[in-house]
């Protein structure tokens, strides 16, 4: 009888220990996934070594793929050339205007004694080496790291708009969290504008069924029209201002019918990103 009781007690203790371990592990997972995890030297070394080995392995495949895509694009080159010739005259006048605007901006900054503005940044091009492994994390890895001057929280864009931000970097690689991430800590300050007005809000979620970025915190949604552009505001100190995020697709209310939500169609096709640009924000003196 006593032995049976002892066994029952032991069994209960084991169950209790297992439950405690599960809770402890869940707490660790929650902390490491929801917060930024800094890589130690050992982790950085392993990540660099694996990424470089992968690069070496897939460079012949990449070369062949590029060769084929170059050949396919050759077919459309004559047509594209004609369009480009027509646009060339426009580009020259835009360039002249741009130079003039830059000169005026510089003069105004000197006049007002401003060292930098929110839209000041430097460019750094990078290639994607791996994408969203493990499915749920919405991250990509690029082939530039701290050796190239990349730091955490730098904005990452491509020719169409904002992609995400650097969450950690090793010597030769960086991990970028996409703005389509469902991470609740990943709020980005934005502005809605059609040229006449500016309203500020926050990206708070991503609806993957409809491929829409959801924006909250805009008080006066009556001024917002469908197809108005959404840009980064530069507030919050992470992203430079003026990076395109997308266009307003619809305006709805939240599940409690309390606040307005703006649904934005992203300008970037997140399923087709091969090359990106990291924006290094100029620091204040």
């Amino acid at each position, binding site marked *: 009888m006593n032995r049976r009781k002892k066994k029952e007690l032991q069994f209960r203790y084991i169950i209790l220990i297992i439950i405690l371990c599960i809770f402890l*592990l*869940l707490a*660790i*997972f*929650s902390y*490491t*996934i*929801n917060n930024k*995890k800094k*890589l130690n030297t050992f*982790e950085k070394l*392993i*990540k660099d070594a*694996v*990424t470089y*080995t*992968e690069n070496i*392995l*897939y460079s012949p*495949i990449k070369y062949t793929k590029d060769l084929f895509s170059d050949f396919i694009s050759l077919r459309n080159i004559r047509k594209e050339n004609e369009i480009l010739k027509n646009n060339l005259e426009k580009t020259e006048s835009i360039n002249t205007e741009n130079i003039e605007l830059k000169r005026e901006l510089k003069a105004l900054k000197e006049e007002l004694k401003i060292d930098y503005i929110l839209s000041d940044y430097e460019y750094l091009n990078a290639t*994607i*080496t*791996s*994408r*969203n*492994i*493990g*499915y*749920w*994390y*919405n*991250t990509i890895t690029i082939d530039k790291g701290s050796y190239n001057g990349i730091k955490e929280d730098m904005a990452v864009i491509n020719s169409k708009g904002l992609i995400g931000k650097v*969450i*950690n970097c090793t010597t030769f690689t960086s*991990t970028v969290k996409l703005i*389509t991430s*469902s*991470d*609740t800590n990943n709020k980005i300050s934005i502005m809605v504008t059609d040229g006449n007005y500016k309203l500020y809000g926050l990206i708070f979620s*991503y609806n*993957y069924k409809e*491929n829409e970025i959801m924006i909250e915190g805009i008080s006066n949604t009556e001024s917002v029209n469908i197809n108005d552009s959404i840009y980064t505001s530069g507030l919050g100190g992470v992203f430079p201002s003026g990076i395109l995020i997308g266009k307003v697709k619809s305006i709805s209310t939240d599940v409690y019918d309390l606040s307005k939500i703006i649904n934005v169609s992203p300008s970037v096709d*997140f*399923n087709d990103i091969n090359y990106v640009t990291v924006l290094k924000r100029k620091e204040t003196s």
Partner: protein
Amino acid sequence: MIISIIILTFSFLLDGITSYYLYSSFTDVSMFNTIYTIIGLVIIYRFFSNNKNYLILCAIFGLLFDIVYTNTLLFNLSIFCLLGGIIVSLNNKLSINIINNSIISIVSIFSYYIITNIILVLINYIDFNMLLIYRILVNSIIMTIFYSIFSTLIIDKLDKKYSFKMVK
């Protein structure tokens, strides 16, 4: 042991390489979506007579998966150990052949996606979506079966030619 590590390392690198070409996102789940490292773990079980060594190898590759691909701590290590346990128990009940290897691979891949989804929903990282999980699971079948059959056939041939030693 060396052949097991080679197979696992190749599968591990394949995960990174294929992610570039067969990209999966929430809006577009690739038809050839799978985790090659887990299939590699299923394939190499035949070389282990000692389950402890096998589970240690599962833990090491789980840790590597954490560091290189998902930026997490102990997350994949724990899941890979759990999957190692599932693979051991299934292999004890089923004989080692191409079909059984494919079945165990599918069970392991399904378990991985379901367990990660449950944990990430529990810690409030993602929202629960039954339809999405269903799509991921269905889309992972093709590549899982293909890679499992392909690698089993190659290892069978190599085993006949070089007769690999079991890990004690």
